[in-house]
């Protein structure tokens, strides 16, 4: 009998906060820039300098903590996490150890129509490290180059409970987390650009066993797809190791996207002896409840609330509401379309149908969609007015997607206006009736579905421009 296994997954997410300046100095957080230009004596770790906490970072961390249903600490402090690596000029990272700013939160995720609550252990503030640049081949190059522009950029680290049990849940968690943080406006959360990074802890255990198995940590996951694939691979790999009588080694593994596997990173010996201690250069942070409540009241509408509102106010099915609120960009787009076109379900159908199909095919997200929300609204109005048929609208939509042109311009340019003139259509209908005696006979003999074929022939003859309702009506009249 084969043993069945269960995966246990916990995730640490680092999010870069969208402040103007770094967490402990007034250097800019602007992305890129010439190497080492966005620095000052503080973030370069020069002797004699002192860090001073950016108030905005505290506000943003509290905002994110509240959005993730955390309890905000009235008293918290900063600690030094000690390790040697050239991307860290002070040889320690300022972080929060035993008294983080927020704890005991949760996120509700949805997988296969089931809602599941994932616990959030803690959320803390810390500074980002610099960037190592390798000239040429990483293996053969004799040296590394260091750019400290990113050193000191504010981060929040969000640690989940080991509550996830499948690659799908892991992905759903990070997707939801990203959406919530984006809605709060404290970060762009761009996974590809590294403003949202996740490290995933995975272990497996025989079903029914209570203790956790030995875990590995997976790094270098820069898309949702990579995350889901890496976790799926790692679960299978660990089961394979156990099945063949081996032991899983606790280590850090990196995801190799090209090969679709996780690879062991040479384990840095004693790497986890960080010798945390309170940073004497920074004083404790004391937040009163009044200020915390003030921030809570200023929180914008979050994905779950927005989703509930879409169901309640717009009468959208749960499925539509979930998909539309999954990212802030998608949801904001939807909101703008319905400002100009008042049938939310029709907008939802187009966004989840044609638009999603074309975006997926192009590997794009909605921010790169050339169709403006107002243009989509115009297109839907053209259908309602009968100017174009729903079928032709798809052609127009594709053209809009490719060129960003207005729907009216495309309809005019390509002569796509729907034929709703009875006189003009009657002639075509007569021709079709004359050319298809077999179908006409079938219809008259009681096979009413034969009319579908005849409608199709009229549509074909008019290159899709005939008003289908009118064609139906005319055919029925003439065949009586």
């Amino acid at each position, binding site marked *: 009998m084969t043993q069945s296994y269960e995966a246990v997954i916990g995730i640490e997410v680092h999010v870069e906060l969208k402040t*103007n*300046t770094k967490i402990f100095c007034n250097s800019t957080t602007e992305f890129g820039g010439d*190497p080492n*230009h966005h*620095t000052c004596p503080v973030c370069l770790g020069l002797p004699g300098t002192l860090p001073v906490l950016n108030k905005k970072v505290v506000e943003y961390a509290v905002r994110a903590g509240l959005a993730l249903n955390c309890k905000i600490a009235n008293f918290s402090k900063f600690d030094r996490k000690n390790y040697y690596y050239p991307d860290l000029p002070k040889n320690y990272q300022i972080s929060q150890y035993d008294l983080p700013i927020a704890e005991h939160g949760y996120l509700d995720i949805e997988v296969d129509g089931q809602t599941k609550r994932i616990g959030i252990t803690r959320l803390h503030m810390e500074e980002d490290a610099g960037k190592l640049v390798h000239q040429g081949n990483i293996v053969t190059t004799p*040296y590394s180059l*260091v750019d400290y522009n990113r050193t000191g950029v504010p981060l929040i680290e969000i640690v989940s409970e080991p509550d996830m049990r499948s690659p799908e849940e892991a992905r759903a968690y990070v997707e939801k987390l990203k959406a919530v943080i984006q809605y709060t406006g404290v970060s762009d959360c761009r996974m590809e650009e590294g403003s949202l990074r996740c490290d995933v802890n995975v272990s497996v255990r025989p079903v029914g066993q209570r203790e956790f198995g030995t875990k590995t940590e997976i790094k270098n996951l820069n898309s949702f797809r990579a995350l889901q694939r890496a976790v799926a691979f790692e679960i299978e790999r660990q089961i394979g190791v156990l099945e063949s009588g081996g032991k899983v080694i606790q280590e850090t593994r990196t995801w190799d996207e090209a090969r679709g596997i996780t690879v062991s990173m040479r384990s840095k010996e004693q790497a986890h002896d960080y010798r945390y201690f309170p940073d004497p250069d920074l*004083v404790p942070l004391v937040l009163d409840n009044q200020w915390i409540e003030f921030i809570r009241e200023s929180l914008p509408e979050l994905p779950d609330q927005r989703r509930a509102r879409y169901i309640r106010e717009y009468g959208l099915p749960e499925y539509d509401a979930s998909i539309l609120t999954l990212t802030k960009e998608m949801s904001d787009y939807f909101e703008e379309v319905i400002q100009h076109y008042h049938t939310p379900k029709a907008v939802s159908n187009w966004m989840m149908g044609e638009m999603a199909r074309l975006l997926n095919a192009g590997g794009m997200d909605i921010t790169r969609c050339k169709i403006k929300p107002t243009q989509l609204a115009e297109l839907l109005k053209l259908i309602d007015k009968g100017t174009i048929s729903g079928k032709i609208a798809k052609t127009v939509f594709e053209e809009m997607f490719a060129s960003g042109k207005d729907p009216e311009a495309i309809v005019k340019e390509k002569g796509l206006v729907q034929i709703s003139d009875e006189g003009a259509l009657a002639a075509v209908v007569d021709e079709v009736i004359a050319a298809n005696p077999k179908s006409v006979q079938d219809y008259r003999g009681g096979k009413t579905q034969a009319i579908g074929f005849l409608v199709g022939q009229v549509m074909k003859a008019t290159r899709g421009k005939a008003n289908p309702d009118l064609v139906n009506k005319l055919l029925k009249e003439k065949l009586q």
Partner: protein
Amino acid sequence: MISKQDVEHVALLARLELNEEEKELYTRQLNKILDAARALQELNTDGVPPTAHVLPIQNVFREDRVGEHIDPEKALANAPDREENFFKVPKIV
């Protein structure tokens, strides 16, 4: 008790290269320091909150306004090695 292995471990973490003599010396000295600190353990600290900072100050903040950058020439002035405006370091894998 601090063992010689502890000293080797801490030295490695601090990137210190110690010879045998130094290891012995530091093992003895660190144990003496801990003995002295142990005296503090005798104190009754019931009802004393843990100290997060020695000064009675809290909430020192800075506004989120961008200031002057350092001149990159100054930033790199003490670098043992550089390439253009990068710090140049031995490769770390």
